[in-house]
Structure formats: C-alpha cells, structure tokens
C-alpha cells in the first residue's frame, strides 16, 4: 500500500531505535491500546496492540482504578507493550471543541484574547476549566484570527488523569480525539499535496465532523446524530422494539458479528444478505440526509478557509462505519469519495504485536495517539 510507505512491517533483525508511548482510547465498547516503534532504518512498525471489551459499563469502569488496572493487565498480558507511558484523549463527552474567532495583534495576545472569548462563552469561571487551542488561521484577515479551542472541565480532567495514574499508568500527553485522527490522516496523506479530508466519527448519540487540511485541524463539529437515532428509525419503520432492531442490524448489516451471543459458524446468517441490508439502508436514508446537510455545510466552511480547495475524501470512523453500505449510501448523497478509514494497522506485519486480532476502524484514534511521539521523535 503506497500510502503507508512510512509504515511497514518490521524486518526480522531490524534494530529498534525508539519506542513511542502507548496510544490509549476509551472507546464506546472497548479499550484500545496501540504502541508503535521506529526502526533504525527510519520505518515505523507496530510494536503492540490490544482491543479489550469492557467487562462492565464504561462509566462504572472509569470510576475504579482497581478494575481498570485489572483490565489493563488483561490487555498487556502476552503482548510486547513497552513501559506504561500513555498518550491518551479525554472521552468525547468530557470535552468541547469550538472554533473561535478573536482579534489579536500578535501571538502573545492570543492567549489573553482567547481567554476573554471563552470567559464570555463558559458558564463558570475560567479557573474551573482546562483550555488549549491550536491556531487555524495564523495570518490576519480583517484583524481576526481563528483557532480550534478544546475546553474540558478541570475536575473531569484531573479525575481522568488520577484514574490513569492510580491504575499505574503515566500520562505523557492528554489530547483530543480529533487531533489524533488528524495526525493519522495527515500521516496517510501525500505530504507534497496536502489533502482536505473530512473525517466523520459516528457515536451512539452524537457524531463529530472533523475537517483536516494537510496537517491542520480546521474544524471539529458535534452533530446531534448517532447510531441510536438510526436504530430508532428502523424500529419505528419495522414496528419492532429497539432491541430487535439492534439485533437485526448486528446480524445482517455489520461488517463483523460483534453482538454477544450472535450465531457463529455455518449456522450464522449469511453476511452478504444484500436484500436485508438494502432494505435497512433505505430505511435509514432519510436519517442520513440530515447528516448530509451538516456535512455539506462543513465542506463549504472548509473550502472558505482553504481558499476554495475542495475536500477530496470523506473517511468514516466509529459505530456506523461498521454498517455495511453506509459508505455507499453517503457516497450517493454527496459528490465526494466516501470510504471507511483504512485500517491503520494493515501495513504492520509484526506478528508478535497482536496477530489474529480483528482490525477495526475504531483503532484509528488510538493509532493517531500513538503516532504523536513518533512524529515528535522523527
């Protein structure tokens, strides 16, 4: 795969020059961990990866360092993870990402200007929040600058850091999911001609539209659209319960049967049951239309910020990315190539790193987090 020229399988006998921190993400259903290493010849390879399902509700797990420690022990067991230093992202519910315009004479004024803007937008004093930002538009236009600002409640941040610390992890960096996706997409793109890429990260209740231009994060927007809404739509249309609708989707639409207790082997329903899939896609198409409106608005915004450069591709990540045909349906509705994000680990052929585990688009965030050290080092 040409795009992954910087990522390749480890050659037996290649000397490891640097090992990055572990990219750690608390996804909706699983804990994802990815660790990369740079070989002496400059290539990046996967050192270890793990995706372990939560034994209980994620919210419950995140209140107990002891249970998290036990889960981590399961994840680390038998896998060649090195050290316990992690780069992680706050769970999406704990963070708000905003695009903020502000007037600032120079970079030194930016901190104060953003603080003033955020003070007016946030309900509590600034001391109760942790705020960081990345400039999107550094050059002045009409005296205004633009930054992507990440805001999280200070208590939530400290609780999260303490949870990890008490679970015997050392946090090297704490960032946001969209930044990790941006890093992964940037690394996959041809750097000589930076792409404008829209990444759609589907959640259960909300979806995030992340606009990336080359190595810049232009926008991260939250949209009230999620898997649950589509399941409700299917249930209403077919006059079945939400749980039955979910079972139907798990058995006929998902790219892999992940429902606990789902039939496996020769008795399992054929996954290429196109009639059922097409029917279900027709049901959710009106629901997807509302998302498409948001996508088009985002693409217009990106074009304005990048002097008319159109987005070349849309990547899908998250829950709906596992639904067969969603990419095709969206492709029909917008005039841009839509595809699931390529499995970021497909280029790694290190058998010791977790061979046999199913590759998932969800591992993209953890891979993007793990890449942070590699770019800093390399």
């Amino acid at each position: 795969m040409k795009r992954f020229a910087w990522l390749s399988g480890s050659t037996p006998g290649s000397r490891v020059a640097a090992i990055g921190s572990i990219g750690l993400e608390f996804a909706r259903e699983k804990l994802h961990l990815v660790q990369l290493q740079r070989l002496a010849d400059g290539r990046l390879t996967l050192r270890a990866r793990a995706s372990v399902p939560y034994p209980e509700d994620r919210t419950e797990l995140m209140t107990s360092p002891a249970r998290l420690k036990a889960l981590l022990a399961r994840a680390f067991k038998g896998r060649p993870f090195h050290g316990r230093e992690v780069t992680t992202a706050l769970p999406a519910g704990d963070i708000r990402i905003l695009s903020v315009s502000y007037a600032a004479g120079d970079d030194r004024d930016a901190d104060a200007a953003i603080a003033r803007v955020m003070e007016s937008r946030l309900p509590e004093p600034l001391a109760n929040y942790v705020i960081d930002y990345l400039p999107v538009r550094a050059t002045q236009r009409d005296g205004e600058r633009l930054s992507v600002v990440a805001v999280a409640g200070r208590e939530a941040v400290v609780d999260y850091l303490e949870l990890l610390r008490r679970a015997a992890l050392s946090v090297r960096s704490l960032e946001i999911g969209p930044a990790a996706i941006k890093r992964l997409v940037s690394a996959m793109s041809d750097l000589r001609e930076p792409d404008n890429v829209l990444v759609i990260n589907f959640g259960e209740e909300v979806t995030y539209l992340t606009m990336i231009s080359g190595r810049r994060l232009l926008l991260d927007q939250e949209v009230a659209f999620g898997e649950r809404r589509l399941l409700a739509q299917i249930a209403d249309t077919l006059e079945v319960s939400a749980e039955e609708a979910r079972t139907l989707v798990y058995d006929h639409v998902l790219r892999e049967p992940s429902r606990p207790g789902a039939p496996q082997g020769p008795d399992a329903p054929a996954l290429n049951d196109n009639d059922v899939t097409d029917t279900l896609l027709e049901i959710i198409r009106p629901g997807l239309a509302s998302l498409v409106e948001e996508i088009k608005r985002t693409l217009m915004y990106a074009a304005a910020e990048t002097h008319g450069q159109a987005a070349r591709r849309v990547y899908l990540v998250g829950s709906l990315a596992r639904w067969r045909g969603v990419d095709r349906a969206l492709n029909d509705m917008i005039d841009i190539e839509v595809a699931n994000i390529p499995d970021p680990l497909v280029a790694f052929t290190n058998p010791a790193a977790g061979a046999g585990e199913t590759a998932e688009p969800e591992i993209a965030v953890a891979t993007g987090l793990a890449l942070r050290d590699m770019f800093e080092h390399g």
Partner: protein
Amino acid sequence: MAEFDLIPGDYRRGLHHLRWLRRFALALAIAAILSGSAFAALRLGTRAVSAEIDELRGTRAVNEQLGARLAELRKQRESYASQLSLLDGLRGGTPAERMFSVVDRALGEEPVWFARWRFERAGASVEVSPDGVNTGYFIVIPKADGSPEQRAWQVETHMSISGRALDHAALSRFAARLFEQPEIDDVRVLRTSLQAQRQKRVEFDLVVVVNNGAGR
C-alpha cells in the same frame, strides 16, 4: 508542530514534585538500609574483634603469669646455681689424699717424722669490698633480698702437722720444698723445740695452707 495538551500545568508540576519526592524517599530508604547494614556489619565486626581482643588479653594474662613463673623459676635456678657453686667451692680445693703425695714429694729422704696430722677445711663469711683486694679463695654468696651488702665465703684449707725432725736443717729443707709445691700456698712453722732426750731431735708444729685453686 503544535499539539493539544490538556494536562494542567500545576497538575504536571505536582506530579513532577511527587515523582522527585518518591525518588528522594527511595534514596533515603536505600541510604537508611545501607547505613543500617553497614552499622550491623561494623557491629558484628567489632563484636568479633572484641572477642579476639578479649581472647588475646586472656592469652596475655596467661603469658604474663607464665612469664612471672618463668622469672621465678629462673631466679630459683640462679639461687640453686649459686648454692651449687658454693657447695662446689666448699667441696673443691685439693683433695686430702692428694696432699699425701704432695707432702711425700716434699719430704723426699729428709729425716722428718710426723706425729699428728690434721687436714682442715674452714670458711668465714666476709664482706666483699668493691675497691679492696681480697686474697684467698672466695665464693660469692648470692645476695639476699633487701641486703645492701654483697658477701662472700672465704674458704681456707690447711693442714696442721706436728712431728719430729732430725734437726732444724732437715725441717727447714722439708718446709722449703713443701712451700715450692704448687698445691701449697703457705707454710708456717708455728713451733720448734729440741727434745731433752739423748738424740736431741727437733719437735715441731707447722701449718700448711693449701692452695684452693690448684688441682681443680
């Protein structure tokens, strides 16, 4: 390339301090363990050395005791040696039987007869004067403890002879030849008298002082 990092600065600094505190505590613990171990090792070593010293002290006490005993025995041996020397001295000198041959050699063909012959060995304790000149045969007596003066035993052996001679000339030759004998120190004629009888023999008494160093 700038990146997001939402770890609060004060939290990061707190962790940094905590890490240093832990290292410091660990270093302190290690230092304490090392000090304790060193103290224990020194104590153990000191105990071993003390035991050795005690043993050496005991050995020295025994040695001193043995030394004192040895000195006492040496002193006793010296005392016995002195006494032996004294006894040797007292027993020494020219033997009485040899005196017969000495007198016989001095007598030759002289017309001298012996009526009474007494051989005597006698001694007297005298003070040894460092500056004076003593004559005779002296046996130094071991100095008694606390005695300020050195005494010696002056041994004198002599023979008293009474007899008759044909005449004074014969007595004189006999006395002269006796005096010439190396075993004899002195010959003193104590008395002579002519007999009132017809032959007019000379009766005499003389003392012969025997040289105590000769013949030994």
